[in-house]
């Protein structure tokens, strides 16, 4: 581990610790238990990875496996946070929720299946698997969060500032991960591929410098984006959390049943008239 990586690891540990402090102080676990769990999981995983680097050595096989395992565990827990954001506040609007959760569930299943199938087709190397899965899961996170925000905006149901900040943070470092992992994967599968092939060990000394440079660069970008996201979350948590919103009182079901077809009919008539206008 070089000086830069060591410094970044310390900074990451510091940022994650501050986040956990805010989460504990604001009692976020009462409002968003999965986000609280994610924060603590990040702290544990950062400590475990750092401790592994210290004890087993940065370039050891153990560190390699522990690093990629922590990346995938983080992605899995992050998925739970996204599920929580989807449910938050929207569940009280029973009609919309019944429609939206199915849509988001189908979208999630499709994206996760795509991620698995994409990883399945890769050469049998954990780094390539990891980069592919992490990239596709990050992409899935962005797509699902964007869909959620579009749906909420469409129905005029805004997210609260903390939830918005969490969604923005996840989207930001997921976007960086998508770009970074795409480049990393193409390099692993391209001219660095011989590094993963035992028969090509004669080339390893020549590739080691290149590989170290690529990994260092990617780690730096990844950690900076990650710390930026944590900074956004800490900023959102600086104030005490507002009281949970009261559940909305819904209209009688017959209002929708009566008015919705009527409104659609009228909207269709508008369109028909516009079509008439366009006729020569």
């Amino acid at each position, binding site marked *: 581990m070089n000086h830069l990586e060591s410094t970044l690891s310390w900074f990451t540990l510091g940022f994650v610790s501050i986040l956990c402090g805010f989460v504990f102080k604001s009692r976020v676990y009462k409002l968003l238990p999965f986000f609280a769990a994610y924060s603590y999981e990040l702290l544990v995983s950062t400590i475990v990875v750092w401790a592994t680097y210290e004890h087993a050595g940065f370039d050891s096989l153990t560190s390699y496996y522990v690093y990629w395992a922590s990346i995938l565990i983080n992605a899995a827990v992050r998925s739970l946070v996204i599920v929580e954001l989807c449910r938050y506040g929207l569940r009280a609007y029973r009609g919309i929720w019944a*429609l939206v959760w199915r849509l988001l569930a189908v979208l999630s299943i499709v994206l996760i299946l795509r991620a698995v199938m994409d990883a399945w087709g890769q050469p049998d190397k954990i780094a390539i698997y990891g980069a592919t899965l992490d990239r596709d899961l990050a992409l899935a996170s962005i797509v699902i969060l964007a869909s959620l925000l579009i749906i909420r905006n469409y129905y005029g149901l805004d997210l609260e500032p903390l939830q918005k900040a969490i969604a923005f943070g996840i989207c930001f470092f997921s976007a960086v991960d998508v770009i970074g992992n795409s480049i990393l994967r193409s390099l692993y599968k391209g001219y660095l591929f011989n590094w993963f092939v035992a028969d090509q060990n004669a080339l390893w000394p020549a590739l080691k410098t290149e590989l170290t440079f690529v990994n260092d660069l990617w780690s730096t970008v990844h950690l900076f984006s990650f710390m930026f996201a944590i900074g956004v979350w800490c900023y959102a948590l600086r104030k005490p959390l507002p009281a949970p919103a009261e559940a909305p*009182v819904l*209209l009688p079901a017959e209002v929708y049943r009566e008015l*919705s077809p009527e409104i659609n009919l009228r909207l269709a008539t508008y369109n028909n008239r516009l079509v008439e206008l*366009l006729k020569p």
Partner: protein
Amino acid sequence: MTNPNLVKNLAETLTGVLGWFLVSRDKSSSTAEPSSLSPLCEALPSAKHYVYFPQVRQALSAADTNYLMERAPAQVAILALRERRAVVRQFLKGLREDFSNLSRMGRIIASMSPEVSRQQETERLMLGLKFQILYVFVQLRLFSGSLPIEHLEHLTGLVGRLATRMDAAMAKISALSAGQIPGNVGA
């Protein structure tokens, strides 16, 4: 009627029509009283713009066009025709506002309903997309000068009838949900 008078009258008419649009928008935003029904009231599809159609039609009538072309100097006539197109564009914008208010009301009712039909929601989404596309085409035709102004009358007649019916519908909702609508839909 002399040319300067003609130009003056035209200018006054157009200013009046444009003023009406602006005032009607200001009124719509400033006279809304906050109440527990505000989310629904804000979305009231009151179709504000159609009521000014007689003035718009007067300003855009074929007789006026012919008179203008015959009597006014060419430059003045061209300027006046351009201004008339601008008025119609404003009017179309108003119609789009009415459409989006109606659509928004549909979405608010859906969000406040315990049951929602997937078919209805999909249909409304598609109608909104279709309207946006058609609106762009109408704008393009208007911009190119190939849209007969008289056709707009059919559209505005529709909007007027719609306003009456939807206002009645909203009164019904208000009666059904008296005291039940939260102040903030986006909870």
